[in-house]
């Protein structure tokens, strides 16, 4: 810490990231079969955990998804279901 100058309090040594995936008790799982690729889930995900992937598909990522279930509620096709997180694996 001693080389740091401590003049004004600024943060520029990388991004401060919390492991929010560990909060999840349930994880959203997308049913590719019924999904109509409307993107509504992406638009409502507060965490931006749903992406439009390289294969031009909507996909749920689990690194930060907090498991709120909003995507599941909002999917017009009910293609997302919330599944209890098993054991110790937190995403």
């Amino acid at each position, binding site marked *: 810490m001693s080389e740091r100058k401590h003049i004004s309090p600024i943060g520029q040594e990388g991004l401060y990231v*919390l*492991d*929010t995936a*560990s*909060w999840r*008790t349930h994880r959203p799982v997308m049913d590719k079969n019924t999904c109509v690729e409307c993107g509504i889930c992406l638009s409502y995900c507060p965490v931006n955990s749903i992406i439009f992937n390289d294969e031009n598909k909507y996909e749920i990522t689990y690194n930060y998804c907090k498991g709120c279930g909003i995507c599941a509620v909002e999917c017009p096709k009910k293609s997302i279901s919330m599944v209890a997180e098993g054991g*110790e694996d937190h995403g």
Partner: protein
Amino acid sequence: MKEIRLHGRGGQGVVKASQIVVKAAVGAGGYGQFIPFFGVERKGSPVFGFLRLDDKAIRRNMQVYEPDILLIFDDTLIELPSVYEGLKEDAVVIINSKKTIQQLNIPSQVREVAIVDATAISLDIFGKNIPNTAMLGAFAKVTGLVDKEILLDEIAAEFGEKNRTAALDGYNRVQSTQLK
């Protein structure tokens, strides 16, 4: 004076539990002190707190650096170096876990490890993981530092009767192992 450090995660009721212990101690005519550590994060982040119990007034107003007892609400926390830090010789560790002692990396100073699956108890009774009252039961059993009945009454008064059951379950189901 016994110095106890509690480790848990936001949402597990660490603060409330500790307050109950102090209330129980005070209710029994003794002295207790609890200082929560306030970080910035919400739900799920590691939280800790400092609990002291004594039969005379507690004066020091500071964190616990060398706990006699550790109360760990979530066994994933033991990966943090800070959790086992500073433990006194002959310390007692009470932990919510399904694991075995071997899996818990218990440091050498520890005299006694008590394991209780408080999460299971809590899921059973409330349908969600709020292991605090079960942990309190275990704490009462293992340490004998608070009067069981007074504690149960405080718990029931604060959280309702279901929690009395959870605490009793914790009391009954905790498994203690002497290492020394």
